[in-house]
Every structure is written in C-alpha cells, then in structure tokens.
C-alpha cells in the first residue's frame, strides 16, 4: 500500500481505497459546511439593528488572510511532491512553511474575532453574527486540527522517515488542507465579498 502511494502516478493513487475513503469523509464535511452556509445565507439580513457585514469587515485584512491560506495550500502540495520523490529534507521544509502560513492565517482570524467581540459585535449580538461566527469558526477549528495533524506528521517524518505509510498519510493530509482552502474561497466570496457589496 505504501509503495503504491510513494511511486505511482496520481491516477493510481487517487483510486486507492484509503484515498477514496478519506474523500468520502471530506464530502460529508462539505455537507456540514453546506448547512452552515445555508444558515448564514438565511440569517445574513437579521442584524438586530446592528451593523451589516460591509460595515464590520476589513476586506484588505481578509485578502491577506486568503493569500496566506492559498500560499500554504501551494507549499503543502510541494511538500507532498517532495514526499513522492523521497526527498525528506524538502518535505520537512515544505511542512514548516505550510505550518507557518496556516498558523498566520489562524492568528489573523482569531485577531479578527477578538476585534469584533471587543467592539461589542460578538456572536450574541444578532442572528447574523451567530451564523458568521459559527461558519467561520468551524473552518478555523478545521484549520487548527490540520495544524496539529501537520505537527504529528512532521514528527513522524523526522523519526521514521518516508517509509511505511508516511507518504500515504502525508497525501491524505494534503487532501484535507486543499479542501479547507476550497471552503475558505467559498467563505471569502459569500461572507466577505458579497457581504461588502
């Protein structure tokens, strides 16, 4: 199984059992986010007399967040390519950069949350804010989980190298990380860009 992941083309890798199984999990996660998006879309106008999205969000700040996450998705992809080419040093460098960018993203998101809460626009403010914090917060929770997973994988790469099922795990992790990037593009578009119009 590990050899299959380490040495073959992407078509053989993406058809393997654990890849399809993990893909199934991601699709169910998509449904979770779909229901949160639906909630947000329904409640976005119910601001309880408070400010709407356009008055609350700093688009430039969110754009930097988006670019950080996009870049981390790219470096994560490079780390996986290095893993398939059996270049351990590059895998670790790639993971480190991905971790730094991901942590930067999460830090900026938490800063935004803290800022909103300190201005009196916490999740208890209105239905719109509740939906916003739930949707963006769930994504942030996924990112935090991904960061933890990345640390575990880095330790594994350092301790056992790229043998065994390490490459397989790295590949599944990259799938998770790219998936979070896709979800963030939806959040960026629906919550921030359309909210600013």
């Amino acid at each position, binding site marked *: 199984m590990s050899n299959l992941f380490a040495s073959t*083309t*992407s078509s053989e890798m993406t058809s393997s059992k654990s890849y*399809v199984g993990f893909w199934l999990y991601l699709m169910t996660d998509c449904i979770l986010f779909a229901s949160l998006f*639906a909630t947000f879309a329904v409640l976005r106008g119910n601001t309880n007399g408070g400010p709407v999205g356009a008055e609350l969000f700093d688009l430039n700040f969110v754009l930097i967040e988006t670019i950080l996450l*996009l870049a981390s*998705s790219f470096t994560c992809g490079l780390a996986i390519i290095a893993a398939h080419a059996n270049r351990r040093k590059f895998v670790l460098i790639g993971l480190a950069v991905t971790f730094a960018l991901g942590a930067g993203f999460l830090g900026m998101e938490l800063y935004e949350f803290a800022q909103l809460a300190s201005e009196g626009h916490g999740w208890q403010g209105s239905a719109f804010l509740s939906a916003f914090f739930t949707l963006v917060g769930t994504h942030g929770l996924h990112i935090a989980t991904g960061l933890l997973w990345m640390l575990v994988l880095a330790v594994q790469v350092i301790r056992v190298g790229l043998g065994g099922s390490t490459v397989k795990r790295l590949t599944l992790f990259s799938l998770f990380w*790219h998936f979070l990037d896709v979800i963030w593009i939806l959040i960026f*578009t629906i919550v921030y860009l*359309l909210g600013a119009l």
Partner: protein
Amino acid sequence: MSQIKKSQTKAAIISYAVGFALSIALTLIAFMLVQQHVGSGHTQISHQMATIGIVSFAVVQLIVQLVFFLHLGQENRPRWNLVVFLFMLIVLVIVVFGSLWIMQNLNYNMMTPVESKAYMHDHQGF
C-alpha cells in the same frame, strides 16, 4: 531517481504552480471588482453585474482548485471520487437553495398586512 520519475515530479510541480497562480489571479480580480464597485459609491458596475462577476470568478476558482490541487477527475475508472462529489453537490444544492426558498416563503407568509403591502410594492407583486 530515475528519469521518468524526475519528469513526473517536474510535471506535478508545474501543475501546482499553474493552479496556484490561477487561484491568486482569480482572488485578486474578484477583490478588485468589489473595490471598484464599493469605491465608486456603488455606481461604476451595477450591483447585479458585480454579484454575477464575483460568483462566477469563485466558481472558476473552485474548479481550478478541484482539478489542480484535489486531482478530481484524474482517477481510474470507475470514478468513485467524482460520483461521490457529484452526489454531494446535489445534496448541497438541495440544502442551501431549499433552505433559502423555504425561509423566504415563511417570511412572506408571516408578514403583517402593512409589511406585505410594502413588500408587494418593492418587489412588483411577489
């Protein structure tokens, strides 16, 4: 490392770089569209056009990321990943648009006569 493997690695890096560049470009274009619209005091591009533009750039970017980053559609037959993905899309559309539809209907039916008159006026008779 064998020659074949080297060229495979190179092709994979190029594929990721193309996906990354396209994603950044699409994000920036959508962002500038909003800046243009809001910066001009909502006059320069019509609200509807801006919405359509932003949504279509997002859809293109989703496809780019699904193909270049998530390797969708590059598997051997039978393409279970693709089948599951399409099923998920159906469920997603039902959940999101069904919710919006139901809630709008509820909203309309629970209006007071005064509210519904104003609504009819604004929406040219719903």
